[in-house]
């Protein structure tokens, strides 16, 4: 299963990179989101996968007695999910705003316009 997931991560990375390399701003955002998903999966896999044993101590115990899923990648990804929501919102609005002000959707057109301000 891990091998399949590793390949999936690679696919997400490749798709993300490809979209970021496009000139259209909308594709850039989509690329960033895909890339972010890839990163999450990567972190998750580095903690190894465990089925059916969430890192929650059962009510009557004080320690884990059974195996449990690694909590650290989960904490990291939880943070990352919420942050990327903020980031995505900001990126989308930034793009919209740039589009409105500069009237271009082409990233290559953005590099010259800040010079003459």
């Amino acid at each position, binding site marked *: *299963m891990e*091998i*399949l*997931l590793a390949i999936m991560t*690679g*696919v997400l*990375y*490749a798709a993300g*990179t*490809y979209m*970021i*390399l*496009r*000139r*259209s701003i*909308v*594709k850039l955002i*989509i690329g960033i989101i*895909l890339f972010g998903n890839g990163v999450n*999966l*990567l972190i*998750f*896999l*580095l*903690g190894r996968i*465990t*089925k059916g044993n*969430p*890192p*929650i*101590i*059962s*009510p009557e115990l*004080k*320690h*884990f007695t059974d195996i449990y899923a*690694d*909590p650290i990648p*989960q*904490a990291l990804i*939880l943070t990352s*999910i*919420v*942050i990327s*929501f*903020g980031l995505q*919102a*900001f990126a*989308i*609005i*930034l793009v*919209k705003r740039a*589009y409105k*002000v500069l009237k271009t*959707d*082409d*990233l290559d057109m953005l*590099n*010259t316009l800040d010079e003459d*301000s």
Partner: protein
Amino acid sequence: MLFIVCLGFLLSIAILFIHKFIKGNWAWLSTLIPLTSFLYFLSFIGDIAQNDVIKVSYSWISSYSVDLSFMLDGLSLLFVLMISGIGTLVFWYTSSYLKGHEYLDRFYAYLGIFMAAMLGLVLSDNLITMFIFWELTSISSFFLIGFNNESKSSRKSALLALGITGVGGLFLLAAAVILGQVTSTYTISEMLSMSNEIAMSSSYTFIVVMIFLAAFTKSAQFPFHFWLPGAMKAPTPVSTYLHSATMVKAGIYLILRFSPILGETSLWNTTLITIGAITMLYSAIQMLFRTDLKAILAYSTICALGILTFLTGLGTYEALVAAMVFIVVHALYKASLFLITGIIDHETGTRDITKLSGLKQGLMPIAVAGFVAALISGGVIPTLGFVGKDLIYESTLHFKNNAWLLTGIAIATNVLLFYGGFLVGVKPFLGKKPEALPHLHMPSIRLWLPPMLMVLLGLVLGFMPYLLGDSLIMPGAEVLSRGESGLHLKLWHGFNTMFWLSTLTIAFGVIVYLVLKPSDKLLRFSEKFEFISPKSITQYLVSLFKIMSKYWTMLFQNGYLRHYVATYVTFIIVLVGYLLLKDPVLKIDYNTLADLTVYEIVIIIIMFLSTLFTVFTPSRLAAVAAMGIIGFAFCLLYLFYSAPDLAMTQFSVDTLTVILFVLVLYRLPKYLKFSKNYLRVEHGILSTIFGGMITFLILKVISEPKNSEISNFYAENSYVLAKGKNVVNVILVDFRGSDTLIEITVLIVAAIGVFGLLKLRLKARDKK
């Protein structure tokens, strides 16, 4: 004590809510803040005079042995009284000086932060805390110098000052870290007993040099002095408070504080004496060429700081006493001269000495104050200045070698200081009043009372120096000189060598004052040599650096996002790929892997197809929908692999993201095909290699055994230490709570960004 130190910070926060109040007629009420601190610290005089040391400590980041520990001894009491005392007068003065100013509230906020930072700096017993306060003073002074932010030169000076003093702060940090390693403590009072070990250690030279760099940048010693005259762009109360009486003395405080720890080596003493002497002579001569009252004062301040460094370098008991007395003397006369300059500027609109004369008509009380201040500055009997100068000569004369050379330098400097004091304090008031100046009348009491009080104090302490000596100077000197004591301050020592030297100084001073007339000619003459000054050299280096970075930028930062990303990706592929290919064999133990199940495979296939679809679909809506599917597939994956928290969060965020897209999508630009086909293929290949490399990397990691030390720590202690059973949540809100705190701050910043971008109206320029 923590509360008193933080009063200034509290004020600056409170300004948010009471800014209307503070801008109006009630501005003077803010004076209560420094006054409270002053009275609070005044109450310790009795204890300190008994040579008590008061220590208070609050835990802050104990695990890194960084605590808010404060220590009040003779030296720090001297400084806190100066800071809060002069602070009181400056706050009071400002309420009239900047009356009705649009940003008076901000001004008070910065001033409050500055005062608090300064108090913290001199009270800190922990080096790291000290560093933080040190940098806070630099930052708040940046805002204060650049207060007139509409003027370009003001912004430039502020940046220059921040650059120099900020870099100095980093040196302090370096010294602190190394000292911490050598002594395995950050507490200054604990380092006192370890001075031998420090002197023996191999990093001694490094520590000393770092401390020197920190102190010299902050206290404007040659060759780092040039930011200080520029800092005079600030409103006069700032120059008074920061750049004469308090902040620039922080460097002096640092070397004084460390002289019992690091001192008594030839490296320490010789460097300080040399740098101090150069600074004092250099700036004293520079002073001759200035015509702006504030510029004269700026150079005379640098000169005084040079004297202080010099005295600390001498390091004898007498010299340390002299230094401490001179700190007080200098604070008193320099602050009052600055305030008087402020009044002159306020009333006449000019600070050019060649245009000012005869101001005693209408400003008589201020003329008297100026005269007395000049007397203190010139060290004329019976002021405290005389006591100070007496001690300086005494310490140079009694120094073990080159006594007469050092005394000569001290005399020459004092002659010029005398001249400078009279130039500012006396000259503008004498003679005939030019027609060009407006009719003058006495300003508000809030303006003239503070300088008056200070010169009065200088006179009173001149008659009764033991008031100051027994309560502050002696305990302070005791701290610094490790127990030596016995000197009592007196005004009159009889007709000894020191007295005759003093008289000589005054005589020469009067001659210089009568002979030299400040004029633009002299100023222009001095500007011819500007190109070899440290300031010009620095600026030249900076411009070289700019040219270099321009070429660098043209090479790498060409403005095309694609190029950047492609460069990064290629770089990573080469770097990581090289490592991976060195050992390309995968040794995966298939038994440890999870089993394949049908529903998992289905989900992976769905994810895979959606990803491809997202990349290749020509429709935006389809792409967004496909991304939603990827998100929900993730949700299920997390659920399978024991991460219920993640599944819930991913689900909620995905819902919100889809809503977000729906809201914005139709206003977003349409998909357009910009790239050329060969570029697409090229990028496709690059991305595929990158993705493949990541896959390989993960497989490589999986084939290695996992280190779960940290995870086990959290899992074991989750309930025992943090009383929580959901380990993920415990990590977020307890073990790594500080990270979460910063994270939500980042979220807020993002939301504010969105709000700002959308609500901000387009400026006229953008509408074109």
